[in-house]
């Protein structure tokens, strides 16, 4: 069974204080690892897909990295508008449109 564990559950940062969010996973053949941002009461908003160990993707203050067992979402000099829940999900190579298995998410609060 595919599993995703995210840590910490919650993270409070001061504006400008860089940090990393962790996603550990087990999957029977990884097709892709996905990061989403979710604001309260909203749907997940796609951020990144990573396909193979060593791959990195960047978008503004966010950088996602992937190893064979975990992924990190690095946040550089965060701003209050980065406050949200960040979800990690994996997709197995079981079919062309196989399901996403999500972690519980990490709630990030950035204080001005």
């Amino acid at each position, binding site marked *: 069974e595919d599993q995703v564990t995210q840590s910490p559950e919650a993270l409070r940062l001061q504006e400008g204080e860089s940090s990393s969010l962790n996603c550990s996973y087990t999957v029977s053949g990884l*097709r*892709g690892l*996905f990061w*989403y941002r979710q604001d309260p*009461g*909203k*749907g*997940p*908003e*796609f951020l990144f*897909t990573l396909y193979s160990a060593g791959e990195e993707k960047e978008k503004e203050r966010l950088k996602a990295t992937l190893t064979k067992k975990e992924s990190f979402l690095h946040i550089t000099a965060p701003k209050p508008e980065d406050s949200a829940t960040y*979800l990690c*999900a994996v*997709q197995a190579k*079981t*079919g*062309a*449109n*196989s*399901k*996403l*298995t*999500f*972690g*519980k*998410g990490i709630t990030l609060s950035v204080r001005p």
Partner: protein
Amino acid sequence: EPEVTQTPSHQVTQMGQEVILRCVPISNHLYFYWYRQILGQKVEFLVSFYNNEISEKSEIFDDQFSVERPDGSNFTLKIRSTKLEDSAMYFCASSARNEQFFGPGTRLTVL
């Protein structure tokens, strides 16, 4: 930028009633999904759909649930006889390849 839309945004129903949740996927996408998120819990997969057939379904997606693509644009989730434990946010998603794009959700409240 194209996006997935869902209606209604909030649905309140009595236990035992039927509800239909509606979604309009992104127009050139071929793969469609329903997920749900109970308050404070993980996003959980319900069902995936391609070429007018269910591709995969979870244990949650029992005989009370059904999906349909009634025309070229809509994708619906029907719950035949709602239970209290069906109260959740229901998200529709669509994809062209691997990346799944989610709608804003329908909050279903079963009383």
